[in-house]
């Protein structure tokens, strides 16, 4: 089937117009990997068969899950986003979990395979006041596949969530992920995403501090090579005072890879004394690679500290020379520098997720 026919099939499944490059937020994101496939529903068994709930984590009853699903998406302003609509249309596996106090680490492993199927998951996490949880989430694809993730988390007052996502795909696979988090005052979110190997990945971490006074720490690392594309569109919105954001997004672009980062931070009038910093750092390893990076700060409140920065560079010649002058071969020196560059994101992954890094070749030890 022609790509346009297939685009229509995807559009029908989502019940919403297929994203066009004419739309601002899809300008740099080519969904050709998606439209090279027809949407075939998942038929390879229960994708969560290996799930074991750790101590302190319980399943939400179906009725409650139905009632709360979609709330964080709505607060984060992305209920009508195309990937979210697609997830709903794909009849996702739904999983709702509640944490009432301290819990043991949770592991969630998904494998979208390579048989050209669409795997969709809708996850809802409710962290009650003072609860804490570390989530290690893994997504793999080994050939043609589409993985649609919609993950919602609601952090009540003083709750703590440390969430690590390691997603390694295939040049014929697409990953569409929305991670929507709502935070109450005193809560703390540390979200670390590590993405590599996908023909097309689009991650949208979206955080709303409903009444401010919460801490949000975002760490992202994406690696593209060959003709891969990785896109992170993040949004953090402060709807109250005294919120904090510390965001670092890093990119390595090799081959003819393309990387997109769009980092929105919204500080309306109610969000006085917000302290937000965002840094996007990109490393270009080839002349054919491309990086598009854009901070998007909307600041209305007047008593705030909001810093942002973006750098795009190559490997530093003086660093390479320093290593070479100690007898380290140029290619090994480059590998060491790259590993070092990635380290300040990778080391923030929860323990279990950090142990998964060998699944992603770019992040294996040099």
């Amino acid at each position, binding site marked *: 089937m022609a790509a346009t026919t297939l685009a229509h099939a995807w559009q029908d499944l989502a019940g919403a117009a297929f994203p066009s490059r004419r739309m601002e937020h899809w300008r740099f994101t080519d969904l050709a990997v998606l439209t090279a496939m027809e949407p075939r529903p998942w038929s390879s068994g229960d994708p969560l068969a290996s799930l074991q709930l750790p101590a302190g984590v319980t399943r939400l009853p179906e009725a409650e899950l139905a009632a709360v699903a979609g709330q964080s998406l709505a607060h984060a302003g992305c209920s009508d986003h195309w990937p979210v609509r697609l997830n709903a249309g794909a009849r996702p596996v739904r999983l709702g979990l509640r944490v009432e106090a301290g819990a043991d680490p949770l592991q969630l492993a998904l494998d979208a395979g390579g048989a050209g199927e669409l795997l969709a998951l809708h996850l809802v996490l409710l962290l009650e006041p003072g609860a804490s949880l570390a989530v290690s989430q893994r997504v793999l694809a080994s050939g043609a596949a589409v993985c649609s993730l919609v993950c919602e988390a609601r952090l009540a007052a003083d709750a703590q969530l440390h969430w690590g996502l390691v997603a390694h795909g295939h040049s014929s696979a697409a990953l569409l992920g929305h991670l929507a988090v709502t935070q109450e005052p005193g809560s703390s979110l540390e979200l670390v995403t590590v993405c590599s190997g996908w023909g097309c990945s689009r991650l949208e971490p979206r955080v709303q501090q409903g009444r401010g006074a919460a801490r949000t720490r975002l760490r992202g690392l994406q690696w593209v090579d060959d003709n891969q594309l990785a896109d992170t569109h993040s949004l953090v919105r402060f709807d109250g005072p005294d919120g904090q954001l510390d965001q670092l997004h890093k990119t390595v672009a090799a081959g003819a890879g393309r990387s997109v980062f769009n980092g929105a931070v919204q500080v309306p009038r109610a969000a006085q004394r917000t302290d937000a910093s965002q840094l996007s750092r990109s490393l270009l390893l080839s002349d054919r690679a491309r990086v598009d990076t854009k901070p998007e700060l909307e600041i209305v409140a007047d008593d705030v500290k909001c810093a942002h920065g973006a750098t795009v560079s190559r490997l530093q010649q003086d*660093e390479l020379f320093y290593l070479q*002058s100690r*007898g*380290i071969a140029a290619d090994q020196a480059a590998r*060491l520098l790259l590993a070092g560059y990635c380290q300040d994101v990778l080391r923030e992954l929860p323990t279990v997720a950090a142990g998964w890094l060998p699944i992603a070749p770019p992040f294996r030890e040099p």
Partner: protein
Amino acid sequence: MGRNGSGKSTLSKVLAGHPAYTVTGGTVMYQGQNLLELVPEQRARLGLFLGFQYPVEIPGVSNLEFLRVATNARRQERGETELDTFAFEDLVTARLAVVQMDPAFLERSVNEGFSGGEKKRNEILQMALLEPVVAILDETDSGLDIDALRIVAGGVNQLASPGNATLLITHYQRLLDLITPDHVHVMAAGRILRSGGPELAHELERTGYDWVDQELALSEVG
């Protein structure tokens, strides 16, 4: 020795193979080979060491791992076995004493957040591990307080042996009070203008570099 801009650091970087410099003429013979035909890492493996005036900070790369990879590259060239993590830790722990360095610096990223003195100690630690044949130390004394200077100079003295040579680039007699040179060379405009013994450094300390300018002017006229 020589004024700022006389070419001392340039010479040291050219010898080590810094990519910012292109050599347009001449050869540098080292152990029967033209050094200039070798890539920087090969020069280092053959025993050339450059102690940087401004050691480079490399975020994310562990100092310990860096030192181990570098040491093994040199060992391999010398036909010695590669050291695994444990064997290397024993070696590096022993060598730390040469510069009285806190083992905590091994766990940090290479030179990241090190003070000037700590960076220079880390340079001498590398020298102690790599056991160079020829070490060029570019203003190793700059940015050091008296105590750090003593420690660094002590490290250089401990590492000196009949089988190696050290070229110190410095402006100050105070380093040479701690490390007695066999020869002193004065550089100007990229050339060695005068050579002598330790007394030449004392003379420079007394008279400054004005005579160098005069001698240089005369030599250009001549």
